[in-house]
């Protein structure tokens, strides 16, 4: 009697385990589907978030300067504070330009006048990628696209930056 009882409970135990594993696999397939359904919703909330970079418009010159600011980035379930940076200057028309420092080749950080050999250009130390001041990639260097530009606005004389976007071809 007691033996029988034990057998049943062992079988039950196995049964539970298997259901558990099956459930786990189903969840594994469901999660991506769920993400697809939910993702667009998550993304729209990210759009249009402009943050002050603590730089007064009056302090922006013709010479690109590096500004850094922090944003809370939500990556799936993981929320973290990341530092963003941009090269900011006024172009010949007095318009503010904020270039992303991320090289369009393989993603190193570019520096304005980062090489003595190439004044008046952005320079990428990784494979000598170069960009003109307006962000256009120098032909013959590894990058194949211009630097991204940040969405921006000016409020109360302060600069706000948002997302870096690939430059539209003019």
């Amino acid at each position, binding site marked *: 009697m007691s033996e029988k009882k034990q057998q049943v409970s062992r079988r039950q135990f196995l049964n539970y385990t298997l259901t558990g594993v099956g459930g786990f696999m189903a969840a594994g397939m469901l999660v991506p589907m769920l993400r697809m359904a939910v993702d667009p919703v998550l993304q729209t909330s990210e759009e249009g978030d402009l943050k002050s970079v603590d730089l007064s418009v009056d302090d922006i010159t013709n010479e690109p300067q590096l500004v850094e600011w922090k944003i809370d980035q939500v990556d799936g379930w993981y929320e973290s504070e990341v530092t963003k940076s941009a090269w900011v200057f006024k172009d010949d028309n007095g318009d503010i330009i904020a270039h992303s420092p991320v090289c369009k080749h393989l993603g*190193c950080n570019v520096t304005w006048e980062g090489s003595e050999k190439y004044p008046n250009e952005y320079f990428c*130390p*990784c494979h000598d990628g170069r960009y003109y001041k307006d962000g256009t990639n120098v032909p013959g260097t590894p990058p194949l696209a211009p630097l991204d530009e940040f969405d921006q606005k000016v409020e109360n004389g302060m600069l706000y930056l948002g997302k870096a976007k690939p430059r539209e071809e003019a």
Partner: protein
Amino acid sequence: MKWTKMDMEKYIDAKEFVDTLLIPLSPFKMGDDTSLEKDAFQQEVLHLFVHEIEQQLAGRLLLIPSYMYLKDADKEAEVKRIQLFLEDAQKQPIEHVFYITFDASWRKHENELQGNVLWVPSIQTGDLKSKEVQSLIGDQVEQLSEYIRSYW
């Protein structure tokens, strides 16, 4: 690049551009209450460092998962094991190898390791969110990546 699916996808197509390996050396020890906090904190600092460096040099440097070892383990044996990792890694077009650690006991074995050891200052304690610590880390990262670049 990092050890992620996304970056490895890129890596396979661009590996001739990625010639530098960054290997964090992370000591670990749970048995001793008195060092737990400090060890964990330094681990966090190291994590920050490697991620900053990776971000700066993402196109040419591959950051691989930390090499973990027992804090008081025999370093000779660890050197041998690391050598095995490297032999495997060198099936890829890797030319420069950098280790990064705050564990000073590697100093004695620096010459046995193939590649260069980068030292991060061991910040004893503090708040990683504080301005001071962050600017300290920022400066150091700048210097470390400049050092790495000097090998290119």
